[in-house]
């Protein structure tokens, strides 16, 4: 069992390195097939099938309780932390279903990072917030260099370069959230899941993070859950609309907002409910 898990862990690395050499690669960063998620008897996500484009920002919108966050957390197996939650269906990452019994969730999360709703840096130094993830994942390069380049990717370096040894909790909310994004990308994942990353922030901090996404999508596939339709319109290439656990509509953002096919989508984006 243990050995199998290690094999799978390596399988991700082997598959990814082969693809980098121009091997047979999947056209999508992540494919979801027939995803059902239950909390005890309550079906929170119903038979969702969708695929996420590489190096694009995909937004998931919908009213509260529609299952959008639950679906997002299923992509890197974070739902397993909730004992009552059970998942069926497939989430394919490089052609491998991350829910296969011999796949190790740790390895999945190493390639599919996550940023949470509330800024939650580790109660350690700013430097350590970036370095820790890299260290436990066996990073052997120059740590200071990694910290600097990672912080520069989230446009935080100039603000914190003189206080790397200070506690991260001393930063403002917006800075903390950018640090959390930096922490997520410090291990060089392929996909970045963002669960309403700006809902706890002020408009200026929100704008900074939104402008970051444009840069970040050059390297990472970003899936962002938001309850803010304007934000989805501003930052995403494609948008998925969830309602009571169903994927109602999934289309390029422009089409979804200006030319929705489904009546429920139209009602939601025109502000008739939600």
């Amino acid at each position, binding site marked *: 069992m243990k050995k199998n898990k290690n094999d799978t862990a390596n399988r991700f690395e082997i598959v990814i390195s082969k693809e980098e050499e121009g091997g047979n690669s999947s056209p999508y960063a992540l494919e979801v097939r027939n995803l059902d998620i239950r909390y005890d008897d309550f079906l929170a996500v119903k038979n969702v099938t969708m695929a996420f484009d590489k190096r694009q920002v995909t937004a998931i919108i919908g009213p509260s309780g529609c299952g959008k966050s639950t679906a997002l957390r299923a992509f890197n197996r974070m739902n397993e932390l909730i004992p009552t939650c059970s998942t069926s269906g497939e989430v394919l990452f490089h052609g491998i279903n991350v829910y296969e019994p011999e796949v190790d969730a740790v390895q999945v*999360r190493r390639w599919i990072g996550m940023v949470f709703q509330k800024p939650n840096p580790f109660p350690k130094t700013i430097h350590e917030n970036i370095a820790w993830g890299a260290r436990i994942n066996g990073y052997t390069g120059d740590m200071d260099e990694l910290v600097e380049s990672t912080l520069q990717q989230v446009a935080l370096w100039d603000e914190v370069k003189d206080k790397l040894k200070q506690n991260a*909790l001393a930063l403002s909310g917006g800075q903390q959230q950018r640090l959390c994004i930096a922490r997520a990308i410090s291990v060089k994942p392929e996909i970045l899941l963002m669960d309403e990353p700006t809902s706890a922030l002020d408009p200026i901090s929100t704008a900074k993070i939104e402008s970051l996404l444009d840069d970040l999508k050059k390297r990472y596939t970003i899936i962002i859950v938001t309850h803010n339709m304007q934000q989805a319109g501003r930052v995403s290439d494609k948008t998925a609309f969830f309602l009571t656990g169903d994927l109602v509509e999934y289309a390029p953002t422009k089409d979804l907002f200006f030319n929705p096919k489904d009546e429920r989508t139209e009602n939601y984006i025109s502000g008739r409910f939600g």
Partner: protein
Amino acid sequence: MKTDFQTSPAPAFRLDLAGRYRKGTLWSTVFLAITLLSVFFLATLIWTIVNDSFGYVILVNETDPASLARDGKALEALDAAGLTAVLEENLPGRRLRSLSNEKPLAERSRDDLYSVVMDEVVNPEVKAAFDLSESVLAKETILQTLEEDYPEGDLIFRAWLNRGFLGAAQSSVAIAAGVRGAILGTLMTILVTIVIAFPIGIGAAIFLEEYAVDNRLNRFIRINIYNLAGVPSIIYGMLGLALFVRLAEPFTSGTLFGAVADPTTANGRTVLSAGLTLALLILPVIIINAQEALRAVPGMLRQSSLAVGATKWQTVWHHVLPASFDRILTGTVLAISRAIGETAPLVVVGASTFLSQDPTSVFSKFTTLPIQIYQWTARPQEEFRRIAAAAILVLLILMLSLNAIAIVLRNRIRTKKRLSR
């Protein structure tokens, strides 16, 4: 314009601000009274102990120390040879021989000889002991007693808690008795307890809180730990007697390792048995406290660690434990304070009732401060009550200083953790 808030514009509402404030004031007064009452009880306790620990005593010497001066030197100034001579002159041969059988006089240190002279020759006897309030308020009566009943006696103001008391071994004479052995016994026992209970307790808490799945077996274990925390301590004494003293005797008496402090009494009634028993006693408390501490760590911290690809153990070790360590420490300190004061289980495990040697290793026979206090208070003589009070003061000071160390340690961790939050 001043609005009259009392006449509410909505007739169905009755503002009654005065009544609401009155209720609040009433309760806060009640709580203040309760607090003052407990402060009063605590002060009474401390006063009683202090009152018993200091005061005048009337001493009557069997032999006047001034008459023992040799070559123009007072008794206190004599060297070993002089003291030996004093002993040889004043003691009957039989007593001298039995003293030499214990340890030849020539091999004894000067201090040892001096205390033998004091015990055997001078032999001061406490005829009456007065407490602090009597000594201060009724000195005339005391002087009168001295003149009338003990004209040959000395009146001395004695602090029963003094350096000699701390440094002396147990003795059957109250004025010479001390708590050195009991302090060492307490410290060594508690050390064993901490070394065993702290890591095991935290380990069990981590397992139950972070790893254990919610199944019937684990729920059963959990409920049992809660129940064990409420089991009377004497039951743990029985368990310790059966388990450590009897069953694991070769281990607890040290014969297994050939490291026996005293082969004649190697019967498992050792510091190690006592420490292990107390460790069992406080384990449930430590586990429950540590579980609470781990539960108080926000789940978000665990998630953010797991989300960068950390394993569960890395998450626990690097994030959850540091974040909860100050709380864990607080719980452990409380548990250890309880262990320091425990008497009943140690009586059952077999604390020595009279022990004049210090414990030298974990395989030594032992006594502890609470045991010592318990025995002294059981004696009928007035002066044993005084040294019991002094020993209580020692126990309180010991406990407070151990707690203070732990609190300083905890605050240091906390400042580091809450840095500029």
